[in-house]
């Protein structure tokens, strides 16, 4: 199978509409006939990334590569960056505002969830420039 590349813009601003990119990706992965568990893990990672982008970075772009043995998801934004990645990775730590919290988000679970549901995760971030979170999910052969 050749690598399939998918690109989804993530709109900033409206948290209530968040999840469109993840929904579309999920549908595409289903059509490709990938295992249900792989689709679920990829969808959760991307959704958490999407929510983060909307809350913190006014949107961005999701790039997905479906390879023979893994799915690579890159969540790329030009937001404020993460000053302390270690702190951001702690469950329960969040800088999200009250609107996000009222909707049920901002519990400081986003990045930890992405790590939990992926096989590999890396964060490239620069304060004032932006953040790219990359997750890899292995496809069992």
């Amino acid at each position: 199978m050749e690598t399939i590349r998918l690109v989804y813009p993530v709109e900033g601003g409206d948290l209530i509409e968040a999840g469109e990119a993840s929904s579309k990706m999920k549908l595409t992965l289903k059509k490709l006939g990938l295992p249900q568990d792989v689709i679920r893990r990829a969808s959760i990672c991307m959704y958490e990334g999407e929510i983060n982008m909307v809350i913190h970075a006014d949107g961005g772009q999701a790039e997905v590569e479906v390879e023979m043995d893994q799915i690579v998801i890159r969540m790329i934004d030009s937001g404020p960056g993460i000053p302390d990645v270690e702190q951001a990775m702690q469950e329960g730590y969040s800088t999200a505002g009250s609107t996000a919290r009222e909707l049920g988000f901002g519990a400081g679970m986003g990045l930890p969830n992405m790590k939990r549901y992926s096989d590999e995760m890396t964060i490239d971030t620069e304060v004032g420039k932006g953040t790219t979170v990359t997750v890899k999910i292995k496809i069992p052969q």
Partner: protein
Amino acid sequence: MTVQELIPSMELTVFHLAQPERPVAGGYAGDLLSWVISRAGQDCAWLTIMSNQNVAAVALMADVSCIILTEGVQPDADLLRRSREKAVNLLGTSLDTFSAACRLGKALA
């Protein structure tokens, strides 16, 4: 047990039933969406009082078999619309969350 079978067994209100044959493998109760997406198991029935449209997206991503709004909570118009768009099963009960969880546990036993 399927979602279709769970409805009479828990006397649930149907707001939207897109996939009646989905299996119900367990349950999860919670309102904090970040927690739900992290902890709810695949094919579980999710009990919540949250009724904004993000609930439908979380249900879809976490692959739960149905949402059950407890305490007589009605879905807001956007949640209903999004459940239709995303083919998410959206149900309701007048029971409080604890009683609904007990009922679900009995139904699945």
